[in-house]
């Protein structure tokens, strides 16, 4: 039986793994990737101690640091499907069918990109519907595209696309953009950008590939249609908590509610840290620090038992 099983391979999970190993806890870490959401970042400039690092290098740094530890089982690539309560702790069951018995669990599962959840989105995923502008923007050279979401990620996507696309629509649900004012200025000054406020994307239409996007004008309640070739979805993220949702309390935003002093979740024996929790600020450095807090508290808990 493990002392602790850490779920997730972002900065939180790795920090936890390093501390768990140094505390000589019998531990395992389960993840399907290293680096978390920053993996696809072109340049990270705020990871403390590192002036500039690409997402890929960041992921490699984390993986190396974890693999340098002794006494932690790394289960990769795999995903946790389910956690069951047993009398002495928990059963952690993975997608590939591994079953781990453990006294405690630390969930550092982060969050994933939110989808629109409208007709056509799934059908045309990869066929015009895209979620990674840094990856796929060049494929839309001379095409007409839309970005849904006027936050920072949406504005960045518009910028990525402006290097290639013929025209970029930006659809925002509210009546103003929320992203960085500097980026806003850049976007607004480009004649190829058309910003549509109070727009609620409602349906994606296509044949083999996307051909148009329908949206509701929330002002007039009219349904409108834009002819286009691509849609980039940038509407925020949703915490990865499905595997523990029946065991711990989850807040209205789908985040695991934790005690902010110890990182403990409502179920005894489960801790959580990082973007999957109800913290105010979602940051790599904070995830790492909070996950360390959790391991130190798990260590105290196991020693008091």
């Amino acid at each position: 039986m493990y002392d602790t099983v850490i779920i997730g391979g972002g900065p939180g999970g790795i920090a936890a793994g390093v501390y768990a190993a140094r505390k000589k806890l019998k531990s395992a870490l389960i993840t399907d990737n290293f680096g978390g959401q920053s993996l696809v970042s072109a340049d990270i400039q705020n990871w403390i101690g590192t002036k500039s690092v690409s997402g890929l290098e960041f992921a490699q740094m984390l993986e190396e640091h974890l693999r340098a530890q002794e006494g932690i089982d790394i289960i990769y690539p795999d995903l946790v499907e389910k956690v069951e309560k047993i009398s002495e702790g928990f059963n952690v069951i993975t997608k590939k069918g591994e079953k781990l018995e453990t006294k405690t669990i630390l969930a550092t599962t982060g969050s994933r990109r939110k989808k629109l959840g409208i007709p056509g989105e799934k059908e045309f995923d990869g066929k015009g519907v895209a979620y990674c502008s840094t990856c796929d923007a060049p494929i839309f050279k001379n095409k007409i595209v839309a970005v849904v979401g006027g936050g920072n990620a949406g504005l960045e996507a518009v910028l990525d696309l402006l290097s290639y696309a013929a025209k970029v629509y930006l659809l925002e649900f509210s009546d103003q953009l929320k992203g960085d004012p500097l980026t806003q200025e850049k976007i607004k000054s480009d004649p190829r950008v058309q910003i549509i406020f109070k727009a609620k994307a409602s349906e994606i239409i296509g044949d083999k590939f996307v051909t148009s996007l329908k949206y509701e004008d929330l002002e007039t309640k009219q349904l409108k249609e834009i002819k286009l070739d691509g849609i980039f979805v940038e509407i925020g993220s949703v915490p990865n908590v499905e595997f523990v949702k029946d065991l711990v309390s989850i807040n209205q935003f789908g985040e695991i509610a934790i005690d902010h002093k110890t990182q403990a979740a409502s179920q005894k024996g489960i801790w959580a840290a990082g973007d999957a929790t109800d913290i105010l600020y979602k940051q790599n450095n904070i995830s790492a620090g909070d996950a360390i807090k959790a391991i130190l508290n798990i260590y105290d808990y196991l020693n008091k038992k």
Partner: protein
Amino acid sequence: MEQQNKIVKIYTTPTCVYCKMAKEFFKKNNVQYEEFNVAEDEKARDAMVEKSHQMGVPVIDIDGEIFVGFDQQALKKALEIK
């Protein structure tokens, strides 16, 4: 793989992380590959879309078998890497 008898092509964009991961995976496993940068090469872009019926990178072509994205397990299987 001692002698590579499969033809491997990868369609990439310069900013795509999973493309870089796939190429590193090939290098690590001594897989020879030909790279097509679809940000520059329009013909390759059309070929990629045609082959994969989709518009995301990376697309990997191993002897005509098409892989979208970087799935290490699937590539290992296709290239007979243990």
